[in-house]
């Protein structure tokens, strides 16, 4: 995986994005099937293989057309989206830690977002939590310790709110592309 040339990485990313409307399992299977062929090839050989494979958009269209009709037509529920984002942003305040973790679990469990989008969301959200906790612990007992508490409460909120916007926009583009 780490031996891939930039051409391969770009192609796999395009393929994964194009397959966003497909079920996660199918998407993973196609991407890993293509990846195992391209891994470890030099740039020249990889480019030849990629030319043979063709446009990711066409591959994705073929894959989605090959799904049984109900699965392809099913629109992901917007209730799931709303619930997930609500847990992400305020879950941690309602049910400390656990509420927020449940939000992350729902993000990971969704079949709508690509692995890349999930990775971004989870790592930024976890990063914000670490920063908030560090602020609280480092500034505790100082004369301006209140600042630590404020950072602890607001940094995750602001970051998660931004992520919620990002996730909602990715969701909308996928669901629109689906119908």
């Amino acid at each position, binding site marked *: 995986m780490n031996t891939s040339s930039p051409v391969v990485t770009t192609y796999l990313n395009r393929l994964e994005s194009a397959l966003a409307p497909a079920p996660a399992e199918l998407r993973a299977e196609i991407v890993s*099937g293509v990846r195992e062929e391209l891994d470890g090839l030099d740039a020249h050989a990889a480019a030849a293989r990629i030319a043979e494979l063709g446009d990711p958009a066409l591959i994705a269209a073929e894959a989605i057309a090959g799904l049984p009709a109900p699965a392809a037509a099913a629109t992901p529920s917007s209730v799931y989206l709303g619930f997930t984002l609500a847990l992400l942003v305020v879950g941690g305040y309602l049910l400390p830690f656990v509420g927020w973790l449940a939000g992350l679990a729902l993000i990971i469990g969704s079949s709508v977002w690509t692995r890349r989008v999930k990775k971004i969301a989870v790592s930024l959200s976890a990063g914000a939590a670490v920063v908030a906790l560090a602020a609280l612990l480092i500034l505790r007992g100082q004369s301006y310790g209140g600042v630590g508490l404020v950072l602890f409460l607001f940094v995750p909120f602001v970051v998660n709110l931004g992520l919620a916007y990002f996730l909602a926009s990715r969701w909308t583009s996928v669901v629109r592309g689906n119908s």
Partner: protein
Amino acid sequence: MATDIGAQLRKGVVEFCILGLLHREPTYGWKLSEELVERGMIASIGTLYPVLGRLRAQGLVVLSDQVSDSGRPRKYYSLTAAGVSQLREFQAQWQPFTSTVSDLVGREKI
């Protein structure tokens, strides 16, 4: 738009062609796709995986991790016993079927 007759026909038999290929030897996705594309049975690797997914869901095909001839780790697809008997069933019906259809549509060029 006129119906693409070739596409309709392929749709009905491509999964049995995959079973047939896997009966010869367990194979990884890319190789299956290459062979089927070359012979005009599928349009791209994108067509292959939904079919493989269905075959796996039906328990006709299973996946295993193996190392290929070139030393790279691969996921190999192979037939289960149920897959073999499904292929046998298809084989038994295919010859009489094509011969009946040929009789009905006529063997002479129109």
